[in-house]
């Protein structure tokens, strides 16, 4: 088993499948009266969050607690120390506290890689800059597999701000490893020409959402990051929504079995219409529930055995 989960590229097909299978067993726990396992008793998991997050932090916290690990939440917000120094100093503190795993979210791409060279425990990337968010990709893959029965051969459209999306990057890497065919869809300003090839040669790019929908098994809508709206990547929010938003007429173009995903938090009415988000095709609520199972699987597989 691998020691760290810094990138979805750390996972080969066998390891990724093992994580998804383990997540399936962990999911059974949610239906039990006692939602607790003694597995990681005495282990310490530190949630080190340099960026705001609700669902990812809570999800990791719930996952660690359900496995009986001790959880320390470290919110670095408001730190006046410059980023590079503070991360290293924090790492040394965590090292001294004997953290068995550090779950890190950081605005700087690559921060988990740096951290893993300073601490002895496992490092789990919970989102770094515009780089990666591997546990989101795992929970998305798990959701696809439980909704559609497989991942191999699935056609998946990832729609929106691919340029700034760590969710998109991790999903392309993981889903390609597991045999899905990815199409990145969005305005040309938000999909660099070389990005698809750089991530995986099999990845396709399209600038026209309507033309790709009829053949897709999965449509994953990315959040339009409001802070980007001023940056002239697209003329106006309304125009973006008309060309790349998933509304009811567009959803009808999808095959009968296709599912609609969104990593959250959503901008209802912007990239996804409320009727679509609340429709029976939407797996958005399931994704949140599956997040806990997927993160339990990762924590168990990284920390459950001999260090």
């Amino acid at each position: 088993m691998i020691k760290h989960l810094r990138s979805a590229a750390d996972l080969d097909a066998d390891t990724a499948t093992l994580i998804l299978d383990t997540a399936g067993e962990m999911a059974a726990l949610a239906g039990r009266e006692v939602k607790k396992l003694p597995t990681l008793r005495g282990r310490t998991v530190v949630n080190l969050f340099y960026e705001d997050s609700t669902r990812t932090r809570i999800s990791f916290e719930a996952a660690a607690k359900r496995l009986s690990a001790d959880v320390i939440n470290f919110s670095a917000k408001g730190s006046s120390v410059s980023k590079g120094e503070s991360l290293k100093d924090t790492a040394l503190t965590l090292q001294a506290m004997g953290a068995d795993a550090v779950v890190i979210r950081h605005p700087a791409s690559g921060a988990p890689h740096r951290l893993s060279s300073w601490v002895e425990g496992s490092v789990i990337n919970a989102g770094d800059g515009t780089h990666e968010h591997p546990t989101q990709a795992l929970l998305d893959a798990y959701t696809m597999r439980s909704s559609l029965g497989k991942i191999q051969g699935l056609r998946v459209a990832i729609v929106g701000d691919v340029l700034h999306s760590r969710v998109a990057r991790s999903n392309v890497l993981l889903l390609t490893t597991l045999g899905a065919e990815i199409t990145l869809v969005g305005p040309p300003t938000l999909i660099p020409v070389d990005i698809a090839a750089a991530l995986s040669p099999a990845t396709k790019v399209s600038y026209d959402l309507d033309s790709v929908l009829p053949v897709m098994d999965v449509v994953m809508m990315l959040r339009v990051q409001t802070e980007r709206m001023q940056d002239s990547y697209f003329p106006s929010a309304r125009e973006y929504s008309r060309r790349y938003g998933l509304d009811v007429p567009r959803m009808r173009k999808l095959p009968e079995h296709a599912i609609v995903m969104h990593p959250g938090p959503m901008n209802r009415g912007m990239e996804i219409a409320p009727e679509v988000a609340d429709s029976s095709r939407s797996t958005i609520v399931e994704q949140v529930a599956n997040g806990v199972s997927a993160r339990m699987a990762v924590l168990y597989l990284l920390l459950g055995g001999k260090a």
Partner: protein
Amino acid sequence: MAYPKADSRKSTGPGKIVLSEADLHRVVDRIAHQILEKTSGATGTVLLGIPTRGVPLARRLAARIHAFEGIDVPVGALDITLYRDDLRLHATRALGKTELPGDGIDGRRVILVDDVLFSGRTVRAALDAISDVGRPSSVQLAVLVDRGHRELPIRADYVGKNIPTALTESVRVSLAETDGGGDEVRLTGGEPS
């Protein structure tokens, strides 16, 4: 290598056979009868197999009970990996499947089924796992082989065969469902014979 015929299997593989296919089937039949006898017809009883080989054994016991008395005993699987006390001593283990019967185990008599009873630590973990998934009225234990060397105060209610072993020896149970080929129990290692 071609699969050997049943009567020539003595010559294959290391160690010696302690239960042949026919022996193993007789032992399963006997445990099925004992369960019926001891539980007054297996009413309110659930068989829970411990993966890997406890699961097919539990299914076989249920099939034999059905054949003898026409009673359907619910069968499930209970993976105990997450409850083990030796997780830190080994590389991470893959999880087995846990599947409880539809009606659960509350108020039932649970019979745990495993292939080999050794230190008793697996059963200890299984007891913890059971208390997290329900509250049975009682818990019993059925094993195909009891090889001794208990490290905890645990005993089986139904034993297929007691096999005195040395700690250096290992008991290898093969079942058609999990190992391909035929059924047998083999004792390997220990003093060269």
